[in-house]
């Protein structure tokens, strides 16, 4: 059953996913992530493989916790002027939009 989460709940889920990824990939800069933590592109520290893993982890976590099947790397993400993968805040927003759509 789909549970519509609040933006805070989604951000918490994203932060936890980033923290676990940072452990797996030994990423010192993301050991204690927060809303402003840069992820991919510009100042982000994730390489493409780490990003792929993070996306898959978050899609899994959203399915488990909120009962929603989302695809983060969709056409909207690919064509967006601002990448949703820039930082925790933009990624959380992208997750929330897809759960609600």
């Amino acid at each position, binding site marked *: 059953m789909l549970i519509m989460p609040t933006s805070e709940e989604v951000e918490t889920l994203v932060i936890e996913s980033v923290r676990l990824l940072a452990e797996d990939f030994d990423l010192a800069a993301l050991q204690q992530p927060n809303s402003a933590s840069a992820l991919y592109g510009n100042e982000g520290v994730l390489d493409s*493989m780490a990003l*792929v*893993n993070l996306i*898959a982890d978050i*899609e*899994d976590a959203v*399915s*488990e916790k909120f009962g929603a*099947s989302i*695809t983060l790397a969709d056409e909207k993400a690919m064509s967006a002027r601002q990448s949703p993968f820039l930082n925790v805040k933009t990624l959380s927003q992208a997750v929330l939009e897809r759960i609600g759509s």
Partner: protein
Amino acid sequence: MKQIVITGTRKGIGRSLAEHYLALGWGVIGCSRGEPSIEHAQYRHYSVDVSDEVAVIEMARDVKRQFGEVDVLLNNAGIASMNHCLLTPGSTVNSILQTNVVGTFLFCREFAKLMRKAEQPRIVNFTTVAHPLNLEGEAIYAASKAAVESLTRIMARELAELGITVNAVGPTPVLTDLIKGVSSEKMDALLARQAIPRYGKPEDVINAVDFFIRPESDFITGQVLYLGGVT
């Protein structure tokens, strides 16, 4: 217990593959557009059109919930249409590309995500000798499998960092529904172009798949293996 996902398990080679891995004690997760034809305690069936993106994502989510990790994916589901190119409707072209190319891609994308933590994750795609033999009457089918071969080679590189090998097996004609309706003269002429001129058997395909997925094959990726001596 190892878990193997096989598309197109209702009949033909897919069903033989499913029965083979069930006999070896694997958990088999199969799918087809129709109802299941296999009843076994370790067999789980999904009725899914492999080219339906939403349905494939839902299937992968459910597999994750029920079984956790997946060890092997066999992209066996495929359709063919034997026709002269001037007699092939656009709808047939779309349908073949959707099932053979889009379906293979979607299953690779969604199930590779479930294979990231498996010990020896393997993907085996299915191509055909119709592509290297440039068989007349099979333009769209062969073209769709050429695309599958490209997917195989590039995904092998992209998924190598996740430890997933991606290879393809190219069977010769096997007496299944896929070639029903093709005249025996045509089939004889086709077989004559193989180094070993006989019909393939499901066991031939199983043997090639077994080779790709065995633990010792972890240094083999991006390869296409044609049967029957076709090069």
